[in-house]
Structure formats: structure tokens, C-alpha cells
């Protein structure tokens, strides 16, 4: 009976509204969240996130389902932008609600680690000198692998 919202959109993320929605469940004493935003950098004009028309949403759904089972979550929000975004724009928002803080926080960590390397997105920075693809870092790959190894 998990409450969940999985959103893939080209529009601005409506973060406040989802947090309120998650906190409505009186059985949940803990709501943890994460928002990733376009970070200012020298010469950065915009960040572009490309996605796959079918596989990306499927991957987000699978990540949310896995987190729900693994951490016993009562509520999940996983929202991801695509398209071109200015500095300061939210790219991804994740929130987990459940009875206790440990599981809510772990659920958020798990989902952001998975979204970084296991969801079909491709990130491109538009800088003053042109476009540059951004690859996930080695640390990103290791973070995802660690979760796979410590199967609960």
C-alpha cells in the first residue's frame, strides 16, 4: 500500500507540493528528501538532460520499487527533469516516508545513487565554449555497486 509518485517531466519540479503530500500519512514519523540542482560553474550557461522515451520512466519506476521493498517505505517521490535547465534549477527530487528515520534516509541515498548511473539519462553542459557531455564519476559507479553488494 505504498503511496508513490514517479514523475519524468520537461516542466519545473513542484517539490513543495510533493513533500506536503508525503507528510500527510499519519503512520509516517520520518520524511527524508534530496534535491539535486544545476550548480553554478565558470562559463556554464545551461545543463541539458536527455532521456529515452520509454526506458527512462521504466528505470525510475524500478528504482522506486526496489527502494520501497528494500527499506520498507510507506511513501516515495521520485521526480526527474529532462530538457535544458538554467543554473539553480532542480534536476531531481527524491523523498521517502516511513516509520523511522534510518530507513527514510537510506531510501533517499539508495535512490539518488541509482539514478546517477542506472537510469537512462545523458547530461550535457552548455558552456560559453560549446556543449560538453558529462560522464558519471568513478565514485558514482562505486556508490551504485556498493548497494548491489550489500543486498539486504
Amino acid at each position, binding site marked *: 500500500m505504498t503511496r508513490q509518485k514517479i514523475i519524468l517531466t520537461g516542466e519545473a519540479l513542484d517539490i513543495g507540493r510533493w513533500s506536503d503530500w508525503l507528510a500527510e500519512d499519519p503512520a509516517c514519523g520520518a520524511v527524508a528528501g534530496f534535491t539535486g540542482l544545476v550548480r553554478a560553474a565558470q562559463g556554464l550557461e545551461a545543463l541539458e538532460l536527455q532521456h529515452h522515451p520509454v526506458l527512462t520512466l521504466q528505470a525510475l519506476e524500478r528504482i522506486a520499487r526496489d527502494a520501497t521493498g528494500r527499506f520498507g517505505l510507506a511513501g516515495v517521490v521520485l521526480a526527474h527533469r529532462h530538457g535544458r535547465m538554467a543554473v539553480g534549477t532542480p534536476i531531481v527530487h527524491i523523498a521517502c516516508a516511513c516509520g523511522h528515520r534510518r530507513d527514510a534516509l537510506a531510501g533517499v541515498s539508495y535512490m539518488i545513487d541509482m539514478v546517477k*548511473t542506472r537510469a537512462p539519462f545523458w547530461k550535457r553542459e552548455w558552456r560559453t565554449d560549446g556543449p560538453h*557531455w558529462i560522464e558519471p564519476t568513478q565514485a558514482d559507479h562505486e556508490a551504485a555497486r556498493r548497494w548491489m553488494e550489500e543486498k539486504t
Partner: protein
Amino acid sequence: MKLHFEFYGPISDRMGGAGFSLETDAAPQNRAALIAWLSHEHEGAGALGDSHIQIAINDELVRTEAGFDLSDGDRIAFLSPFSGG
């Protein structure tokens, strides 16, 4: 038969865009043969051999070790390593 190719992420730069279509009478039945054939047709296609690039056929990820059986009209997508969030 006609096959449609799609390229996602950095690999699309190497392949000169988001995709193209090709005709063939003898469709390749595994990843190595597919890339060898594409390399004939397109000079950037060697980069598709990178083992981190995943393949989806008709919007479904496939494990390419086992080989595959392509049909007329199939869409074969090459997905660069993901970088979300």
C-alpha cells in the same frame, strides 16, 4: 529488411546524429557482427564496441551476449553510459 538505428548520449556525436536507417538482406545476429556491419557504413561506428554501451531493441534492453534475431522494422538503440541526477 529495413533496420532503424538510434543513438543516445555522447555516442550520438560520433554517429553524426540521433539515428539513421539501413537496408540489408542478412541481418547481423550478434553484437560483434552488428558493429562490424555498421562500421562499413559509418566511420564512427567503432566506438559502439565500448562494452559500457547498452543496446535496446524496440525499447527493450537486451543482453547481447546471447545474440539476437532482428526483424524488418526493428529499432536498435545504442545507449551511452548513463549520467542522471
